[in-house]
């Protein structure tokens, strides 16, 4: 399974990414600061610690949401396979679909018996993820 080539709509904004990473850096700094001032001022340290955790979780949430949006915008596409068969000796060859292929089209001669081969199937293979278990 492959994704379509990305365009501007399916890319994450670099400025937004910069802000998110800046927020994560500041939150990490707050955590470090909280740990360093903990023995002297435990009340302030716990507030800063809380601020740091909230910052990290909020940034991670925004980042995940952005990734989800980008994934939603891309269209799934599956590789299309062309099966070519020799009617005489049964030799089968499988390759990627090419524009102009169609079922029952005569192709190049068979490698084994030199008889003309024919396209017998064109299909896409969908690899489904782990199937949901339903009772029915």
């Amino acid at each position: 399974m492959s994704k379509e080539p990305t365009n501007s709509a399916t890319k994450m904004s670099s400025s937004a990414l910069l802000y998110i990473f800046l927020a994560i850096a500041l939150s990490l700094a707050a955590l470090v600061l909280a740990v360093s001032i903990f023995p002297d001022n435990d009340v302030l340290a716990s507030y800063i610690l809380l601020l740091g955790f909230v910052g990290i979780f909020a940034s991670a949430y925004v980042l995940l949401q952005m990734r989800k949006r980008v994934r939603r915008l891309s269209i799934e596409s599956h590789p299309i396979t062309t099966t070519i068969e020799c009617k005489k000796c049964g030799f089968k060859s499988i390759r990627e679909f090419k524009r102009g292929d169609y079922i029952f089209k005569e192709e190049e001669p068979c490698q084994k018996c030199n008889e003309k081969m024919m396209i017998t199937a064109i299909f896409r293979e969908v690899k489904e993820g782990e199937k949901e278990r339903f009772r029915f």
Partner: protein
Amino acid sequence: MSALMTALQGKISQNPFGENPLSWILNLVFYGVFIAFILYGQRFQLYVMLREVEGSLYKLKYIKDEGRKTAIETIKEIGKPQTDPTARVDRFLEYFTIAPQNLDPAGIVWKLEHILDVRDVRFKDEVKMMAPSADDTQTNNLENTLEAAMALNYIYKVIRHFYLLGKKTYSLYTIMQIQMLLPLIMREAEAYASAVKAFAYGQPLGDGAGALVAGKMMHGYETRKVPKDCVVATVPIEGRTAFLIKAEGPGGNVGQPGNAIKTVIEENEGKISTIIMIDAALKLEGEAVGEVAEGVGAVIGGPGVDQFKIEESVLKYHIPINGVIIKEDIGDAISPMRKEISDSIDKAIERVKQVILERTKEGDKVIIAGVGNSIGIGQ
């Protein structure tokens, strides 16, 4: 009295939310949220739904733009037009067809058939003007590509209409209608998105399962054209004479199986023992893709003109009509053919042969019609 006044003053001056200022703030926030939800609960729900629709609208816009881009690129690549086809494609995407008036339903099928024929001719002419170098197969494929892009454009515009209407009127029920249908609409839109690519490249669709069954059974035999855009081959099967019908491929084309079946029946003066129709049919959730089932009746979708004509013809000569279906969902029907469907073709052929053996005698004449889009399927 003065003691009572002092006690009352003390009570009033006491902080009703306790001494802690944080608890004060939290209490206020709680009451504020509570009141806000009582007064504006529906409005909040509306905003949530609008946001959900907005997210899908972004995706629909992306899909629609990609479809349009693919159509334009394919026309440029195959049709080699002298001028830029973009403006003509944009005009095509806005094309509409008005169904006949049904206040007096008598004769509506013929009116609908006429409208559909006019539409078909008009579309083909437009495509030929856009892509002068395209051959007949490519013209059919381009027409189908544009029709899929047109469907995407229409879906996008309808969803945008309801979204903007909901935003303008703040009507929860306007936006709720579209929000509830959105998952199904998105599935259909995604299927059309893959249909655009499949049509542009000439890949067989899931919908072509019926045509592939007929194609496989008639392959190697001489074919002749029957109206409209169909081919028929006379094939001996199990001592019977079978007339195999399918839309002419490998270009994107569904033909008019109704007219084709009628022509073959008339050619044989109604002496047909049975008709077997094979088509892809929508499966229910829980059913396997590519499952083959059997029944009776005219197995054909579309606007109903062909089904009507087939039913009229079989009724005239009292011909039994059987059907074999290959199950798939809407996404599979208009996307490149899945392996499961391709693998089920031989099972469907076996089922057709079984019906012939069970329902007819040696020497009988049988019509076998494979219904569906013949894109990427020769004969």
